[in-house]
Structure formats: structure tokens, C-alpha cells
């Protein structure tokens, strides 16, 4: 099937349109079945994907505005494939665990549209198409937060929207400038990312472009000091919103760095390693400390997301295959783990309508299954070996060690600080005697919740023990990318760094 990528993108949206005529009571079942089909399609894409090929596959290209080189251009490689699979999986599981009763039909339709935009972002190879999906993804999310959120949902939704929108406008300027430069150099217009890869730009332009792209991506990631929209968005969003936001939307930022900044602007990327690493370190340590002082469970996980995204950023700028592969793997694992953690917080929120840790305590006695799954996810979150969280974190730190041992040491403090806030959360919530009388009658996980959580537990263990099926295609694509960057880098300095970061010290 040649058009599988298009089907993958537009199937949920078309199904979402049809969803308008579905009966309200069967909307959830409809949504789940659509998401299941979409997930199966994604799995099928993975099956027919050639893991040993590091380049783009299943390319589709239809010129849209030929004069300006804008085309409908899709493709998938090892970097994007798994994020797409993960996105479809998280939407499916999120829908299964959906506990919202109000306007369920609108929610399902919004989710399906959101799914289209998310898949579209990761499959687009044309900057304009990429940008379209990128911005469109804000709309359903805005609606989800604004319509089903907590008491300050409007503030949170508007902040989320305007903040990220501001960043992406600067990114758009960068894209247009890049296209202009491309036209200037080659004489033809093109917005195809793969065409831009071939472009060798003067260093000065690279820096400006890097900064423009940086704003778009960094706000999405969100990097310190642009992170403050995230706690609000998570704090106010409904469970499903937080799940999708943490699992997929944040990954768009780091994916953007890998897809745009590194291959198009290799010299500037090398130049910017230190500033970005410093920001990432601040993110890692600072937000981990803030997470520790939170009183709301969801906020802890929200800030922990920022901290983990810091590690991912560090991996992206490790400039070697270990680090970049690790950071892509960490994107997946963070998606699964933080998604699961948000679902878990949602479970307790559904029962008690509060997320304050002080309201709980001793839940492990009342809800053992819940405590077990939470414990597994917690351990994955703090990067325990043989869970999914370790592989990525280990590779990222390993990769970045080549750039700077001291910075790696500081970044490595995440394994300590992460344990501090996560264990503190777990202790306050699950350990100790049951102090609050209301907690005595809490019900353990029901079938629906188990259905949505158990697959994630299985993935956490499976990919922790045997990450190869995923790591190998990622690694092939990343090696491709690193080799390409090295070839393309203009300044000798950048070349040296890219080469040296991949080399093992030779024996004397």
C-alpha cells in the first residue's frame, strides 16, 4: 500500500467527521474502534518498515503550489516511526481510560482530530505541511483544556495557546527565511525538508535560523525558562489532555530539533551545544527541585516531565549516535511512562476529585493494584534498569559524557533528584496509615482502567528488557543522520566535534 502514510494521517480526521453523526451513547465505542484501527495501521506500518534502512521510506509527494515549491510530502524513518506508533497507542489507551461523561462526543471528535495533527507533524517532510499540522494541533488541545479542564482552565488554555503560538510564529519566519535562502542559492523555491538538507549555509545565517527554530521548538519542549505554561496546562487539563500533551505534544519540540536544527544547521548546532546544555541542566535540576516542593500530584508529574525533557534535549545535542538514539528512545519511554502516570493520577482524581497529596496516605493498603502499577511506573520514571526508562536515560548520559563529563555529572543528578521527588510522592500518597476516612472506601482499579494501564506496564517491561526491535531502526536512522551532519558541517571545528563525539579513544 503506497498511501499508508496519508491513510494514517487522515483516517482519524475523516472518522472524526463521521463521528458527528454517531449517536452520543456510542461515541466512546466509536472512538475506541477508530483509534484501534489507527493503531493497527501504525503497527502495520512498523511491520512493513525496513528497519535496516536509515533513510526515508513510504515517500508520498504531490505538488500543491508548484511555483513556491510547496508540496504534500510525507515520509517516515526510524526517528519518526515509533513516535507515531506511540502517539496512536496513547490516544487509544487514553480513550479506553476516558472517564469524562460531559460532551463525550465532542471529546472523541477532538481527540481524533488531534490524532491527525500529531501523526501529521511527525510524518510531514514539507515545512509548510509540518507547520500546518504543528499549529493545527493547538486547536483541539485548546478545546480539550478549555472545555473539560479544572477551575482555571480558560487561563491555562489561553496561556498554552498563545505561548506556543508565539514560538511557532518565530519558527515560521525561520522557515520562510530558509526557503528564501534556498531560492537565493539554487534559484528554485522549495519547502521540502529533504531539499533543505542539501543546503550548505553560511555560518551567520545558520545562527539566525537556529535561533528562530529554537524559539518554536524550545517553547514546545518546554525548555527553561519557557516552561511555565506546562504546569498550568497539565494542572488544569483533563486526564486525557495531560496524557496526550505529555506523551506526544512535547515530543514535537525535541523531534523538531532532530528533524530541522541538527541536519540543516549542523555548524550552528555544534556552536550552540553549550548554551543549550546549560539550559537543559537548569531544566533538569531546577524543575526536579520544584517538583519536590509540589503539593499536587499532577504538578509533580508535570514538572518531572520538564526535567525529563531536559535529559532528552541533552541527548539531542550529544551529537553522537548513542546520545541521539538514546534521546529518541527516551522520548518514547517518557511518553509511555508519563502518560501512564497522568492516567494514574486521573484514576484517583475520578474517585476523590482532588489531587492533593495531603489528602491521601496509605493508599497502598486500600488500592493494592493501583499502588503496584503506580510503583512500576514510578520505577520506570526514575530510570530503573530493565524498565523502559533506563535505556534512554543511560544512553543519553553516556552520549553526552563525551561532550562534557562535568555537565553529565550534573545531569546525572536527575537519577537522585528524580528518586527524591518520586519517592516522596509515593510515600506521601501510598505509604503510612490511612489517615483520611474517605480513603477507606476507595475502590481499586476497575476493568476499564486496567485495560488502559496494563498494556503500558507490559511495554515498560518489554522495552526495558528487550529494546532492540525499536532501538535498532532508530539507531540506523540516527547513524545516517550523524554521518550526514558530519559530511555537511562547514567549519572544521564542527566537523571535529561531531567526529570526536562518536569516537572511542584509541588505544595507545
Amino acid at each position: 500500500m503506497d498511501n499508508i502514510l496519508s491513510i494514517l494521517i487522515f483516517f482519524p480526521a475523516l472518522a472524526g467527521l463521521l463521528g458527528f453523526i454517531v449517536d452520543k451513547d456510542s461515541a466512546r465505542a466509536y472512538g475506541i474502534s477508530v483509534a484501534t484501527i489507527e493503531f493497527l495501521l501504525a503497527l502495520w506500518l512498523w511491520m512493513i518498515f525496513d528497519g535496516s534502512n536509515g533513510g526515508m521510506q513510504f515517500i508520498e509527494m504531490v505538488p500543491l503550489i508548484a511555483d513556491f515549491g510547496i508540496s504534500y510530502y510525507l515520509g517516515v524513518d526510524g526517528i519518526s516511526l515509533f513516535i507515531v506508533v506511540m502517539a496512536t497507542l496513547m490516544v487509544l489507551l487514553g480513550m479506553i481510560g476516558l472517564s469524562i461523561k460531559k460532551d463525550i462526543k465532542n471529546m472523541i471528535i477532538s481527540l481524533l482530530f488531534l490524532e491527525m495533527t500529531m501523526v501529521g507533524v511527525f510524518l510531514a517532510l514539507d515545512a509548510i505541511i509540518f507547520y500546518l499540522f504543528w499549529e493545527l494541533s493547538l486547536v483541539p488541545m485548546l478545546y480539550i483544556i478549555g472545555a473539560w479542564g479544572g477551575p482555571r482552565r480558560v487561563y491555562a488554555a489561553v496561556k498554552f495557546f498563545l505561548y506556543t503560538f508565539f514560538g511557532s510564529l518565530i519558527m515560521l519566519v525561520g522557515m520562510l527565511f530558509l526557503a528564501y535562502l534556498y531560492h537565493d542559492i539554487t534559484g528554485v523555491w522549495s519547502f521540502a525538508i529533504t531539499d533543505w538538507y542539501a543546503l550548505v549555509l553560511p555560518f551567520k545565517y545558520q545562527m539566525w535560523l537556529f535561533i528562530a527554530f529554537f524559539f518554536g521548538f524550545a517553547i514546545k519542549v518546554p525548555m527553561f525558562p519557557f516552561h511555565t505554561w506546562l504546569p498550568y496546562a497539565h494542572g488544569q487539563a483533563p486526564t486525557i489532555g495531560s496524557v496526550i500533551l505529555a506523551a506526544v505534544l512535547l515530543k514535537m519540540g525535541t523531534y523538531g530539533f532532530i528533524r530541522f536544527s541538527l541536519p540543516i544547521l549542523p555548524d550552528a548546532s555544534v556552536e550552540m551545544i553549550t548554551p543549550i546544555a546549560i539550559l537543559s541542566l537548569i531544566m533538569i535540576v531546577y524543575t526536579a527541585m520544584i517538583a519536590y516542593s509540589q503539593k499536587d500530584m499532577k504538578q509533580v508529574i508535570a514538572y518531572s516531565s520538564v526535567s525529563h525533557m531536559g535529559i532528552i534535549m541533552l541527548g539531542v545535542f550529544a551529537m553522537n549516535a548513542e546520545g541521539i538514539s538514546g534521546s529518541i528512545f527516551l522520548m518514547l519511554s517518557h511518553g509511555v511512562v508519563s502518560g501512564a502516570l497522568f492516567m494514574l493520577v486521573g484514576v484517583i482524581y475520578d474517585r476523590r476529585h482532588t489531587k492533593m497529596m495531603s489528602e491521601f496516605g496509605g493508599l497502598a493498603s486500600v488500592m493494592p493494584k493501583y499502588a503496584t502499577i503506580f510503583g512500576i511506573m514510578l520505577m520506570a520514571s526514575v530510570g530503573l534498569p530493565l524498565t523502559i526508562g533506563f535505556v534512554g536515560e543511560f544512553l543519553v548520559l553516556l552520549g553526552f559524557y563525551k561532550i562534557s563529563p562535568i555537565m553529565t555529572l550534573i545531569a546525572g543528578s536527575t537519577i537522585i533528584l528524580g528518586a527524591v521527588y518520586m519517592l516522596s510522592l509515593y510515600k506521601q500518597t501510598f505509604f503510612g496509615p490511612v489517615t483520611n476516612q474517605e480513603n477507606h472506601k476507595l475502590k481499586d482499579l476497575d476493568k476499564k482502567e486496567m485495560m488502559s494501564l496494563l498494556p503500558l506496564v507490559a511495554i515498560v517491561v518489554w522495552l526495558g528488557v528487550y529494546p532492540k526491535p525499536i532501538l535498532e531502526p532508530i539507531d540506523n536512522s540516527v547513524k545516517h543522520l550523524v554521518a550526514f551532519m558530519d559530511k555537511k558541517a562547514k567549519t572544521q571545528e564542527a566537523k571535529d566535534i561531531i567526529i570526536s563525539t562518536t569516537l572511542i579513544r584509541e588505544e595507545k
Partner: protein
Amino acid sequence: MENLVYIALFAPLVGSLFAALFAMTPKNLITAFVTSGLLFVSWVASSSLLMYVMDHGTISVNMMEWIAAGNLTIDFGFQVDAITAVMMVVVTTVSTVVHVYSIGYMEHDKGFNRFFSYLSAFVFSMMILVMSDNFAGLFIGWEGVGVCSWLLIGFWYHKADVSTDVNPSISPSWAANEAFIVNRIADLAMLIGIFLIYWNVGSLNYDVFFAAIPSLENSLLVSIGIALFIGAMGKSAQFPLHTWLADAMEGPTPVSALIHAATMVTAGVYLVVRANPLYAEIPNVSLFIAYLGTFVAIFAASMALVNRDLKRIIAYSTLSQLGYMFAAAGLGAYWVALFHLAAHAFFKALLFLGAGNVMHAMHDELDIFKMGGLKKAMRGTYLYMGLASLALAGIFPLAGFFSKDTILEVAFNEHTYIIWFVLWITAGLTAFYSFRQVFLTFDGDERYKKETDAHPHEVQNFVLVAMAPLAILAIIFGFFMNPFKEFATTILPAYEMSEHTHHIAWILIIVTTLIAVSGIVLAYKKYANGLVRDEKMENSFIYKLLQNQYYIPKFYMEFIAKPYKEISDILWNKVDMKVVDATVDGIAKIIYFTGDKSRKMQTGNLSDYLNWMGVGAMLLIVITALSMSLS
């Protein structure tokens, strides 16, 4: 033989998973039987591997690839050589005994099935730790035992936090978190060591790394050595990362016996022994390890002198003995360290299990000042604990005598007389506090009748039987020293005493035995006939200092934990909310404010609009004119 490796490794995992199936159901003896049975299977496999390795040398198996990215390839590879085989047998022996013991000990506990699941999971992690053929695999086990230890220390998670005056460990869950976090600090150093190895050698396999050592710079080796040793310090609770071990006594006693005495805490020693080619190259670091170990030995022994908590005394003595092991390893006598490790595992586990019996009998009362005279009720336990204490004190012909004495000889042989002297003093202290504890618990007046409402009784017979293997090993293990040496030195460097030391060895033995015996005699005199409280001494500065563990936990609490919490709160309330977020909101507010102000321009009067339009038009024209005239 490969199958045996897998059986030894995975039998505990299977047991753990099986027990986990029943984790949320009421007590079911089948979990205990299955896990214990599978551990026995693992023990049999380990023992046969030991035999095999003795005859045929190292076995290596490669199960599958784990992580491959860039140039890095990490396999699930396992190798069984002399060190590993010894560790495996020690681990499976003690854990099988502990499993069987726990059937009795946890009899009435609600989390019976869960307990066995955790315990077996721990054994599995420990097996991975000792069997891996690369540092990443070691790290899996390293973290795995950390988590199992977290689970098991916090096993009675439902207990509430209390102030440190009531219980220095606050609560099981608090102690569990402390243990995990402190270990993580050390793990970070260990990771750094792993990164250093990878980026300089290109592989994490022991063999590749050890083969590459001669080609690496000394400064690099020093860094690697220090990083790995910091990792070892965390797991083996060496100063200054030692506080978690005493608090870890909050866990059920079988856990203390298995994890916090016999196996997990010795992982650090194992790492140093395993990395002996590295440490042999960096004598300065090794010497530092020896000195630190010596310091910890006396440091911990001093705290044990005055403590009143049955389990904490044993925990400190564990700490002290770990110090001995590090001293030996640091001085280059790796096989001696390993030998002491094994011997210690047997008698210390026995001691802990005995303490468990006492606890059981006393309804979880741990204060030895409130016991006394228990020997009438608990003859078997008395015997076991006395035996174990004798072994710990290093009295001939028990296991501790041989191992500890050899360490002292080594210290003497290396001409590090300070180490020898300190360790010698510590031997005396060890004997004293061990028997202080034994006498206070079992001899003298029956204080418990006044102080508590416990009715002490001996434990079930099968529990006593289960403890027997440990007792036997504590007695006879010392006689296997020579075969052990032969076997271990197939892998480890053979450590030979100099002629001179050989000559005066018997003097050293006598001197050491003398101080041990005098420690015991002192304890007997002071405590065997009942407790006489000495108010003046108990109020003295040194006594208070020792009782409060040199105020180190308090120091950590006041200067690390609390400031961290405060800084976090400040960062959140002040920096993140008031600076970072306020800036963003400030920008939004400025925009809103300008909009609000300029709204007044919209008077609704067309004439005003036209005027504004005129201003705009003029500006445009002026700009056009200027740009035209400029160009």
C-alpha cells in the same frame, strides 16, 4: 553447563513471579514452598557450577543483546568464574535459609505472599549482579537489589512516621526512601565510572576492560577506580553514605539478615574484588579504600558499643565487618576479603535470624535493656546467637577467627601498622559489643517481665532447623580456608605473606585472640549478671555522641534534607512563580495594558479616526519620501 547457569539465575525470578500472582490474596503457603523450592534448585545449580568451575574454569554464556546504539553494544552476558561461583553459593545458601526461616517468621503477616515475591526478586537481582560479565549487567543487578531493598525495608509501609526521639528511623517507608536515595547518589558515581570505561575502552565487558588496563593512563584509571568505589561505598554503606543501613533495620528481620548483612551490602566488596586488575594498578586509591574501611570498622564498632536496639547493634557490626573487608581488599588481599565476605555472610545472617527469633518472642520489642534472661525460654536461639557472636568476635575455631585473623595479618604484612592497630582495637570492641548484646538479651535478670507484657517462647522447630546450615557453616567454614584460597586465586591474585609475617603469625593470632577474649570477659563482667545503669556514663558527652551516631543523621537532616526542601520551596514559590512565570505574565499584561490604554483612541468619532488616518498617511508618505531620497 549453560543450562545450569540459566537455572541458577532464573529460578528465583520464576519463584518471584509466581508469588507475585498471589500478592493480593490472603496468605497462601504454596508461594512460600514454591519460592523456597526454586531457591533450593538455584542453590543446587550454583553448587554444581562451583564444582564445575573448580574443575574446568570459567563458564561464559551470552543470552541476548540488550542495548545497541552507536558503537555501544551491551549483551545480557553471564560468566561464572571463581568469584562469581563463591558469591552465588553464598547468596543462594543464605537466601534459601532465609526463605525457609521466613515461613515461620512471617506466619501471621498479611503480606505473606508479597514478601516472598519481593525476597525472590531480590535474589534474582543479586544473582544478576554477581553473574554479569559486564558493568551494565552489574548495574542492572545493582539497581535491582536497590529496588528490592526499598520494597522490603518499606514492607510494613502502613506504619506512620514518628519523631526521631521515638524511633531514629522515623518509619519503614522513610527508611526505605532514604536507603534508595542514598544508594542512588552512589549509583551516579558508578554510572560515571561506566561512561569513563566505555569512552576509553569501547566496551563494558570485564574482560575487554581488564585487558585494556595496561594501555590506559594512570590518571584515568584513578578516576575510574574512584568512581566505581563511590558506587561501592553506597551499596556497602561506607562512610559517609552509611546512615541508611542502620535505618534499614525497619524492614522485617529476615530481610535484614539476607540483604543488609549477608548479600546486598557486600556487593560493594564484590565490585572491588571483581575489579581487582584495576585496583591493583592504582595503589593510592587502594590504600585509601583500606584506610576508609579501617575507619569505618572502628567508627561503626564504636556506635555499636552503646546502642540499645538489638538490630541496630548487628547493623553496626555489619558495617564494621564491611570495613574489614574493604581494608583487606584495599591492601590487595582480594581473596581474603572474599573469604571474610563469605564467612561473615554465614554468621551474620545467623545472628540476624536469631535476633528475629528474639523479636518474635518479645513482640517486636528491640530494646535490649528491656530483655534479659531469655535463655530459659529460648535455648536454641541462645545457642545460635552465642555461636554467631563468637564467630563474629573471632574466636577459634569458628569461621570469623580465620578470616578476621588473616585480615589482621595482611595489615601487618603490608607494614600499615595503623590499620593493623585500629583493626586490632576494633576486634576487641567487636567482641565486647557482641557479647554485651548477648548477655543483656539472654542472661541476667528477667527485666522484660516488668518492662513489657511479652511472654517469650521459642520459635517453631523447623525454623531452628532451617537455621542449622548457617550455624554449621559458621563453625566449619574456617577450615576450608586453604581450599578456598586455592580456588579463589585461580582468578584473583595470590596474596602471599612475607617470611617475616609467617614467623610472627602465631604472635599476631595470640594477640588478637587475647583482645577478643578480654572483650568478651569485660562484657560478661559488666552485663552477665544483670543490667546496672550507670547514669553518669550515660550522660557523658561521648556516650551521647555515640548514641546519636555522631550526630551524622541529624547533620544530614539539618544541612542537606531540610535545606533542600527549603530551597525547593523557594525555587517554586519565589523563582518559578514570582520570576519566571511572572515575567511571562508580565509581558502578557503589558500587551493587555497597552491595548486597554489605546482603546481610548477608539472614540467612535469618525473625525478622530480620520485624523489618525491622516497621521498614518503622513508617516507613510514621509517614510516613502525618505526611502526614495536615500536610495
